[in-house]
């Protein structure tokens, strides 16, 4: 299978997850872009952020038109995210994400168990 077809399948899979859960598209994109499509790991991480932005815009538009949305309630999250994203982007080249990912994994497992109970 050639590179464009792999990217098309990977993008579609990330869009499905993002559309249903409102998150998690990056968790599909990063391993598939690096291990299946053959991108360098840091490039896969950065490309996944770039792909998820327009995907989130389309999911957000469907959500807003379907549900309505109180934008004020999202302001603290958006401001925190803006600052966090800026810091994350600035230090990205200098950090190893290995241990951050382990800590992230534990929180996510906790969240998963709590969803099932």
């Amino acid at each position, binding site marked *: 299978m050639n*590179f*464009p077809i792999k990217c*098309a399948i990977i*993008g*579609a899979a990330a869009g*499905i997850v*993002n*559309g*249903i*859960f*409102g*998150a*998690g*598209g*990056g*968790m599909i*994109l990063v391993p598939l*872009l690096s291990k299946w*499509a053959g991108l360098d790991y840091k*490039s896969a*991480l950065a*490309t*996944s*952020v*770039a*792909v*998820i*932005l327009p*995907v*989130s815009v389309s999911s957000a538009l*469907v*959500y*807003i038109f*379907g549900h309505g949305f109180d934008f004020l*309630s*999202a302001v*603290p*999250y*958006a*401001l*925190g*995210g*803006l600052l*966090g*994203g800026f810091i*994350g*982007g600035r230090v*990205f080249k200098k950090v*190893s*994400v290995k241990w951050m*990912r382990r800590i*992230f994994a534990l*929180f*996510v*497992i*906790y969240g*998963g168990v*709590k*969803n*099932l109970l």
Partner: protein
Amino acid sequence: MDAPDICIIRDLRRSEKPIISFIASLITGILSGWGIGGGTLLIVFMTAIQGLSHSDARGVNLIYFLPTSSAALYSHIKNRLIDKKAFIIAGICGILSALITSAFSSHINSKVLKVMFGIFLIYIGVREFLRKDNN
């Protein structure tokens, strides 16, 4: 005498909540900027700790990701880390599938969605915890 005290406590909670939300999203924003699941973690925070419904958390998270990823992308573009071909193809296909599934997602029963998300989180968490690489 009790009523004013209760009001003060409520007001404190109201005033603290945006700060907690801001700090939580700042931390998850760093992870989002690195592409390692900040949005997923923020949904866990909003649903498991702040008590939001998955539907509300989903909406907030989608809005949160727009400034977060834009801020991180500035550096990623500057550092030439984005594969343009992969971005264009995966982006277009992702937009199309997200448009279809996000419309469909409103019709999924909230309890079913919660279980599906729980299974997804456990799978992602275990996979990330056990991953063996040096990055």
